[in-house]
């Protein structure tokens, strides 16, 4: 059991996961933000490694990715920055990004580096299940990394079952089919969809993400899962120079 699995086995609700882009707003902010997030009460971190063509992202994360790249962020540097991760941060950490930078770094090198610095898994939206299963599943397993898959309101039941059988850690339930950063408005349809997935009794815990931007949407979505994920809203806040702890307090109400 790695840190991620340990988290889900001990905490069953209101898990707060925060996404932010490595190297943003300033190149060396990556670890500082991780520490501040843990101190403020985040349970899980998703650190984005930036890509020039992030097709699943809306304007906020496109913007943070561009600035991070202009700042000089890349995977090699990110793993250097994360050398001290485990002496400073205890909560589980995932890396999130697109497949091409991983391919150029070398997928095995990537897995080894994750293991060395204490990263627990990754989320790679454009690495589909079929490719993962064919080429990388064994590799991820041998480095004890969890690969997190997404599901959307359009994902078929059969495919959800397949994803559940391949997953470790949790399943990332998208609040709607959308790019990141479109403010969620939890409608009846959305709640019906969450209930439908919840009642499938999957073996993996669920985390709901995309469009969650305040205390209200966090509470509302987290009620249908083990917790929820906030990305763009947090990135926007740190881009404006606001304190990490204020944002987390505004979500958790502490």
């Amino acid at each position, binding site marked *: 059991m790695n840190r991620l699995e340990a988290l889900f086995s001990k905490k069953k609700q209101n898990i707060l996961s925060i996404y932010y882009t490595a190297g943003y707003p300033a190149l060396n902010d990556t670890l500082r933000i991780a520490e501040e997030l843990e101190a403020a009460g985040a349970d899980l971190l998703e650190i984005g490694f930036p890509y020039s063509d992030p097709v699943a992202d809306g304007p906020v994360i496109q913007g943070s990715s561009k600035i991070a790249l202009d700042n000089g962020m890349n995977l090699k540097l990110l793993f250097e920055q994360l050398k001290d991760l485990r002496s400073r941060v205890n909560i589980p950490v995932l890396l999130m990004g697109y497949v091409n930078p991983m391919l150029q770094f070398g997928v095995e090198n990537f897995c080894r580096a994750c293991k060395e610095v204490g990263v627990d898994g990754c989320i790679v939206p454009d690495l589909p299940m079929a490719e993962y299963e064919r080429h990388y599943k064994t590799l991820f397993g041998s480095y004890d990394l969890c690969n997190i*898959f997404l*599901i*959307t309101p359009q*994902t*078929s039941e059969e495919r959800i079952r397949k994803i559940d059988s391949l997953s470790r850690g949790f399943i990332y339930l998208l609040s709607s089919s*959308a790019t990141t950063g479109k403010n969620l408005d939890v409608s009846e349809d959305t709640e019906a969809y969450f209930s439908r997935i919840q009642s499938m009794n999957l073996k993996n815990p669920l985390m709901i993400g995309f469009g969650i931007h305040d205390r209200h949407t966090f509470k509302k979505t987290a009620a249908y899962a083990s917790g929820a994920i906030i990305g763009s809203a947090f990135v926007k806040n740190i881009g404006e120079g606001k304190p990490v702890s204020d944002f987390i307090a505004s979500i958790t109400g502490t």
Partner: protein
Amino acid sequence: MQHNHKNMNYFVDEQGYYGDFGGAYIPEMLYPNVEELRANYLKIIADPGFRAEFDQLLKDYVGRPSPLYRAGRLSERYGANIFLKREDLNHTGAHKINNTIGQILMAERLGKKRIIAETGAGQHGVATATVCALRGLECVVYMGEIDIQRQAPNVARMKMLGAKVVPATSGSKTLKDATNEAMRDWINNPVDTHYIIGSVVGPHPYPDMVARFQSVISAETKKQLLEQTGSALPDFVLACVGGGSNAIGMFYHFLDDTAVKLVAVEAAGKGVRSGYSAATTLLGQEGVLHGSRSILMQTEDGQVVEPHSVSAGLDYPGIGPQHAHLFKTGRGEYVSITDEESLQAGLLLTQMEGIIPAIESAHALAYLEKMDLKTGQSVVVCLSGRGDKDMETYMKYFGL
């Protein structure tokens, strides 16, 4: 370079791959739509009703077959038989419409109500807006902000055809970014929208589907060449490559005729080593862009490099996966031509044959100057489009 092509397969396999290239590297949000297309496209294309409607529209609406014209004065100049496959004479002025006719019929059969597309030169955008007008479907075209400026006449045509043209303002503000925006639109509109991709790029089954629709170019060429010369097989076939759809269309029915040399002409921009180039096979490495594994221009960190070409239609950092396979196996020869060489070739064709070519197509023509042709040899050049949209660039360059 000698290769044994006998046992090579140049077409897509069951998994959506061409050798090492292809696949469907898409986020889960796109999976239902791409999978629906994958599961149905071959059945739909094989359906006699689809076939009949497609052929009829190509004939009566597009004006096919496009002529295969033996360019007399060019032939004299190069000492060989130079044939031009006249895709420039198609309705809307380029080969792009062969694909959009096929895809609009496909979208209808899949029950889609809304069409999105990306465009570089605007030719694919115009061809998409045209078929949407023809069938009464809503149309949204994404186009890089820079391309909107350099291809103003096509922007006006799209608007007149009733399409909404949305500027892509991210990244290099050209074709790659317009493609990103179209993919984002599709993610946000997962139910009733079909994405008409304009070249042999994107996730499987797009490269194969677009290739099948464009393959009419080489099917006709073979027949016409046989009628005109007594042999269906030329010595060389030339085409320019942006994403590679006119080239695949031109190569398709010659792929297994290994005596025919296939030459793909990429845009060298200001020169391959200038930092302002779009010569993908020379400057690129294997990687994933826009949903398929192929060859693309990128940094060693895997960030996509912004390309440059005077021709908006070739200003793309990747090539379709089938091209990557033809390049890697050596079945195709991949060469490049600079901005300047292409503009000169455009002027040459205009003044020797009375045909103003698109600057994209002029890249293919320019390579004739570099070939060592022998008397009696024959070359077919795909004249993928006409130059109306490029008049401003020609005017500036030649001071017309």
